[in-house]
């Protein structure tokens, strides 16, 4: 019995220690990326190729999800507001919910699932098939050539995708509220304009999406590099990317919200 308890604490301790080591290694990777980032901008086509793979290929899922999220917000929001006679505030509700929270957060979660796993799998496989080793032996730094462009691509794509998400979501809310349900169009937009502040809401939302972009991309890159060079190792790493990215995004969302909007 005592043994089991001691075992439990030992596992807890070693797990904590392992995660601490990972955090340190991740920080070191971040600084390496910054040091080797010159190539990502001098040979911009490297980064552009990665923006295509992380950003453009995520467009479809982002736009479709945004439209549905906006419509659901419009639907749920309308029926709740109507009970208090404030159905004209539906525009404000949809806009604020999206711009402040759902835009950055849901985009980040979708990004982690789509682009994050792709990055982890790709880098994990490159490591497993010794492509990274080969590059090193050819005196080309894999961080400069492979990792850094993906990092900057993620950092650039995320805010763009989050902005698109918010805008499409609002359009979705508009379609439901104004076109289908029949809320007054003028009231929809004017109430929204009166209550959504560019600096406080939109810019803060953009800052959130940049922070989430950083977190998701770093996690995806690190898990890919850290994956054991086996099939099982890579698949576990992609799962970890999604799980840890999601938790990080939600946790950071709480932290950022508490000192941005309160």
């Amino acid at each position: 019995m005592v043994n089991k308890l001691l075992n439990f604490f030992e596992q807890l301790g070693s797990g904590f220690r392992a995660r601490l080591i990972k955090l340190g290694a991740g920080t070191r990777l971040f600084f390496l990326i910054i040091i080797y980032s010159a190539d990502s901008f001098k040979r911009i086509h490297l980064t552009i190729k990665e923006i295509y793979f992380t950003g453009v290929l995520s467009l479809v899922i982002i736009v479709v999800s945004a439209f549905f999220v906006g419509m659901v917000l419009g639907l749920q929001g309308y029926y709740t507001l109507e009970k208090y006679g404030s159905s004209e505030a539906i525009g404000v509700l949809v806009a604020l919910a999206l711009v402040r929270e759902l835009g950055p957060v849901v985009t980040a979660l979708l990004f982690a699932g789509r682009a994050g796993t792709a990055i982890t799998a790709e880098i994990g496989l490159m490591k497993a098939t010794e492509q990274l080793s080969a590059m090193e032996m050819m005196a080309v730094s894999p961080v400069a050539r492979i990792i850094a462009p993906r990092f900057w691509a993620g950092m650039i794509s995320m805010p763009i995708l989050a902005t698109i998400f918010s805008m499409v979501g609002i359009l979705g809310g508009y379609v439901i509220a104004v076109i289908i349900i029949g809320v007054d169009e003028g009231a929809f937009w004017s109430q929204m304009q009166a209550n959504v502040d560019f600096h406080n809401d939109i810019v803060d939302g953009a800052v959130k999406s940049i922070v989430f972009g950083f977190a998701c991309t770093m996690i995806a890159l690190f898990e890919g590099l850290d994956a054991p060079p086996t099939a099982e190792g890579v698949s576990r790493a992609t799962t970890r990317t999604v799980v840890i990215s999601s938790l990080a995004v939600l946790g950071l969302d709480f932290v950022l919200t508490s000192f941005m909007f309160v």
Partner: protein
Amino acid sequence: MKKNLVSIEKLSFDYGKESLHKDINMEFARGKVSAIMGGSGCGKTTILKLIGGQLVPKSGKVVVDDAVVHEQDRSGIFNLRRKMGMLFQHGALFTDLSVFENVAFPMREHTNLPESIIKDLVLLKLNAVGLRGAHKKMPAELSGGMARRVALARAIALDPDIIMYDEPFAGLDPISMAVICDLIRTLNDALGATSIIVTHDVAETFSFADYVYFLADGVVAAEGSPKELLASKLPFVKQFIHSEKDGPVPFHTDAPSYKSDLGL
């Protein structure tokens, strides 16, 4: 000019708990094809990684062209690696680039040559390995042997002084094996390079290598030219060369007595 382009002096290395190499000395003469042989897991590939600076020895040193590898700074290692070409076990071609792009990669990264010259050079290298016609293909479309030849073309793209081969014959059909054998020898002589091959393929290697090292239990068990080794009386060498099932390298790994395992 020193006789040995690469030399390993009193090298010890371990992967954490178990020591892999104990105090070994090796020399690789200029212009010669040397082979490192031994059973699986005896640390042959690790030697290549130590020469290339991807791993750091626990004690002793690896000297390449009069420079101690692990004492180099970033630009030092960069310069050393420019002189090396390495062929990985399964080719390690960049899967997102075509055959042409793969071979052009080192040239594009390290030289400022204009595209027209790069094109000519790439086709030249591919021609040397007999794959000029495949230059538009993607690595996924190549067979194992072809992929390895492309990787070889990439390894010699910048005419390196040292070419390292990690198990170049593993998993190849007899024809491809003969092709690779031939290529290793002719390229070495044509480029005046020093080739180091890690393998456990006795017949093929002995047909063209100049000098062979045998690694076992973390030390150099035997060394010499193929002729000397064929005549060697050392039991380990004999077991290896004549493919004997049991000898100094035992068939059974360490285990408690059979009786106790069966519970009798």
